[in-house]
Structures are given as structure tokens and as C-alpha cells.
């Protein structure tokens, strides 16, 4: 009889690579306990070294709040520009000698035009009052003998009139009217504002990327120090059979806490700044008598802020663990 000798091929050695001990439920509980333990012990370490943790978190929070602060600033300006964009308003500055009666008559003629949605006459007195309230030159204006401001007619073309060419013709028509000294379409500066906004948004993106990288490396450095301080613990754990993931876990959670708390602190910084700026901004927006409200960090944005800062913390510590832990070998 021929005996087939089965040669053992390339066989995996039979070292178990699973969690050992106890039944499945016990294992699951142990796994959960390991994570809970790492989560809370890393938090405990953060609290134990209050002073240095607070310094790190403050630095990170300032970096994060700079990025998110600029973001919310641009979002506010965006909202402003968005509101203005909706109106293709044309302002007609009438000649100085035009009386209010004539101005009203002229306004009525404009109203006849089927392309026009609304016409509003701002008298010299109204203009002056508005100027006094908002310009900050109230007293100086009072000193004037004669009201220097002209009557202004605000013309709002129908929304359907999106075509720029039609608007341009309309504007040219107004410019030719004998009553009009100067006609201006608000669109033009809205467009300029839009372009400025594009630049600002681009700037915020670049700034955020830079600050994000800063946060990443500050966290990495903090975790590196922590790793250095806990060198003995890591070495002992390795000697009694700790896997790399067991050793990584508390540091990753540590990075998570640092990132998360920095995010929370950044949220408070940004919200405080917005609360301080709220009044002056709303006064400013009153000038455009739009339904403009100061935007704060909303729910989604807050969530994104916390998630991004936490992820940066975790990634920062992961980088350090990946490159530094290999060098920590038991002696």
C-alpha cells in the first residue's frame, strides 16, 4: 500500500489571534469594557494633568475658532449678498432742483411701466433723517443750513426681468430722463461683493486647511509627549502580551478627547464673538432694511466642528503611534 505523505505546506503557526477566555457574551463584554476603560482612563489622565491639558486645548481651540470664525463671518456676508442679489434695485438720484411734487409725478409715470414692480420715493427729509441716524455725522448735518441730499426714487423692476440687457436698457432710459441726475443699478456693486466673497471663501478654505494641519500636529506632539511619559507602561504591556491595538487605544482616545474638548472650546469662543458682534452687525444690516439676522453656528455646523476637531485629534495621535511606537521595544 502506498502511503501518501502529506507534506505540511506553508502553514500558519497556531498562535491564537483571537480574544481568549470566557464565552462569547463574556468576550463581547470584555471588548466593550476595554474600550470603555480606554475612553475613561484617557479622560482621567487629561484631568490629572489639568494645566498642560488646558494649555494644549486652548491653543487648539484658538486655531479651530479662527477657522470656524472666518467661516461664519463669510457665511454672514454671504447671506447679506444673497439678500441683495434678489433685488435688482435701481436708485435714481434726482436733480437738486426737482421738487417733491414733481418727483412724485415722475414716480407715477415709472409705475405705468409694466416691467416695474415697485417704486418708492425717498424725500429729502427722509434721506436726511436716515443719514443722521446711521452715518454718525448727525451733529455735523444739523449744522448745515440747507439739506444737501437729493430726492431719491428707488425702482424695483419685476423679478422676471433677469435679463441683464433689458435691465441695462431700462437704466439707460432712466439716465436720459430730464429729472434724473444719476442712476445706479445696485446689481453692480452686488456683483463686486460677490467676487469679493468668492475670494474670501477661497481664503477661508486655505486658512482652514492650514489651521487644521496645525491642530493635527499640535495633537500629535501632545500625544508624543504622553507616549514618552508612559514609556514604561507601554513596554510592560508589550512584555505581557499586549497587541498594538491594545496599546494604541488609550492614546487614540486621548487624541479624541483633546480634539473634542478643543472643538467645544472653539464653539464657545466663536459664539461669544458672534454675540459681541451681533448688535453692531444688526445695526449695519438695518441700513439695507432686509430681514438680515446674524448667523451663529447652527446644529449641523456645530456637529461638523466637533466631528472635524475630534477626527483631527484621533488622526494626529494615530500618526505618532504609527511612527513612534515601533521604536518602543522592550529591553
Amino acid at each position, binding site marked *: 500500500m502506498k502511503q501518501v505523505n502529506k507534506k505540511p505546506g506553508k502553514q500558519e*503557526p497556531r*498562535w491564537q489571534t483571537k480574544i481568549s477566555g470566557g464565552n462569547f457574551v463574556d*468576550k463581547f463584554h*470584555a471588548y466593550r469594557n476595554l474600550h470603555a476603560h480606554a475612553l475613561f482612563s484617557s479622560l482621567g489622565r487629561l484631568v490629572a494633568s489639568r494645566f498642560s491639558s488646558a494649555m494644549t486645548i486652548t491653543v487648539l481651540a484658538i486655531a479651530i475658532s479662527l477657522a470656524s470664525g472666518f467661516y461664519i463671518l463669510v457665511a454672514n456676508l454671504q447671506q447679506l449678498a444673497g439678500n441683495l442679489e434678489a433685488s435688482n434695485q435701481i436708485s435714481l438720484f434726482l436733480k437738486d432742483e426737482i421738487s417733491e411734487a414733481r418727483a412724485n409725478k415722475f414716480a407715477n409715470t415709472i409705475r405705468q411701466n409694466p416691467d416695474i414692480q415697485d417704486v418708492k420715493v425717498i424725500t429729502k427729509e427722509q434721506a436726511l433723517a436716515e443719514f443722521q441716524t446711521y452715518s454718525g455725522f448727525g451733529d455735523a448735518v444739523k449744522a448745515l443750513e440747507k439739506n444737501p441730499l437729493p430726492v431719491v426714487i428707488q425702482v424695483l423692476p419685476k423679478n422676471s426681468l433677469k435679463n441683464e440687457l433689458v435691465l441695462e436698457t431700462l437704466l439707460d432710459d432712466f439716465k436720459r430722463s430730464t429729472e434724473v441726475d444719476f442712476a445706479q443699478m445696485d446689481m453692480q456693486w452686488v456683483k463686486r461683493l460677490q467676487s469679493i466673497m468668492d475670494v474670501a471663501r477661497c481664503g477661508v478654505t486655505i486658512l482652514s486647511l492650514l489651521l487644521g494641519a496645525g491642530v493635527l500636529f499640535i495633537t500629535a506632539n501632545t500625544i508624543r509627549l504622553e507616549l514618552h511619559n508612559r514609556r514604561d507602561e507601554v513596554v510592560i504591556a508589550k512584555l505581557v502580551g499586549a*497587541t498594538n491595538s*491594545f496599546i494604541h487605544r488609550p492614546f487614540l482616545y486621548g487624541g479624541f478627547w483633546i480634539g473634542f474638548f478643543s472643538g467645544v472650546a472653539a464653539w464657545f469662543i466663536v459664539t461669544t464673538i458672534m454675540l459681541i458682534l451681533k448688535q453692531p452687525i444688526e445695526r449695519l444690516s438695518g441700513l439695507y432694511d432686509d430681514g438680515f439676522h446674524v448667523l451663529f453656528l447652527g446644529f449641523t455646523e456645530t456637529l461638523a466642528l466637533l466631528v472635524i476637531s475630534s477626527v483631527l485629534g484621533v488622526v494626529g495621535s494615530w500618526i505618532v503611534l504609527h511612527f513612534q511606537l515601533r521604536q518602543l521595544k522592550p529591553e
Partner: protein
Amino acid sequence: MLKFDNVSMRYPGAGDVLRNVSFHLERGEMAFLTGHSGAGKSTLLKLIAVIERCTRGRVLLDGENLNQAKDRQVPYIRRKVGLIFQDYKLLQDRTVFDNVALPLVIAGYGHHEVSRRVRASLDKVGLLGKEKKYPLVLSGGEQQRVGIARAVVNKPPLIVADEPTGNLDPELSAEIMHLFEQFQQVGVTILIASHDISLIAQMNHRILKLDHGQLVAS
């Protein structure tokens, strides 16, 4: 249980630290590893704990070639070897209980199992009741007992001790050695590196003697 098969170890620039070392420890056997400083005792132990890998030959633990183990398998090999050190290597900021529990926590045992086994292990080394103490308040002998409790808590088939009595007086040393004999009696394989010749001579166990990297007596 533990087999060295023509093992040589060469550090770059330092020459051969171990030369053609061969021996076999049976399951449940207890042996001493002696030799002058620099004879290669520590290197030999490092090969068992896979801290280093030999340049030639084979180190077999439970029939498996340690040289072929992948990096991710190393932790699981170490769980089969209870390591004991001259300087105890305890975590000073953790209680006795936490120190002893570490291997079990790492292996993922549940809370009740951890608690039960730690108590059993501390009972064996005579430290039951000191779970909540910190290592610093314990005497040297007690600290080494904590180290031993930690090494046996996971019930490894092999215990490797590097100068476990190096920092202890003769009386405590004898006690610790007696403790090792008790583990041997329940079937654990034990290898103890020591240069305390008089102590070793008192005990009737196998002696492996290293001299300049070569095994001169077995």
C-alpha cells in the same frame, strides 16, 4: 515544551553572543540558567520572549518555531510565557490588583473572571488582602511576589525569570525559589536565570551553564 536547536545569536559589531546552543526543557521541568555576566543569559531569555530573534538555528516553544512568527503573532506568543524580572517591572501608579490583572485585561477577560483569577493568583503568592496597595509601599520581596502573581495569572505553560532574586536577601530568595517549585509541581515549565551559585546548589534542579555564549553544562 522549550527547545533550543543549534541557536546562534550575533549582534552587529559585537560578534557571537550565543553559539550553537542546544537544550530541551520538558513540560513541567525546572531549570537554572547560570553563567558570568555577559555569558549570554539575557540574550537567551530575550529569544524566548521574542524580543530578539536568533540569527541561526531554531527556538521552539510548544513545537512552534518562534523565528517564523509574524510580528502580529508575537503578543500571543508572549501570553504563553510568564516573564519575571529582576527589577519587577511593576506599574507604580497602579494598585497591586491592577498590576496583576494587566495580562488578563490585555487578553480580554471579563470583569468577574479577572477578579477571580487575580485573587487566586495573589493567594498563591501569599499577598491576598494587599490588592489595593501600591507597589511602592511593599517590600522588595512582596513586589517580586506581585511580579510572580502577574506572570502566572494567565496560567502560562512556561515561566521565564531573569535574576528574580537579584535584589533580595538570601532568606527572601529562598522563599521565592520555593514558590517557583510549587508552580513546577502543578506542571508549569520554569527557566530561571541566576548567578546565585550557592542558592542554586541547594536546590536539586537541572543547571544550564553558559560560558562566552556556549552551553558548557546541561
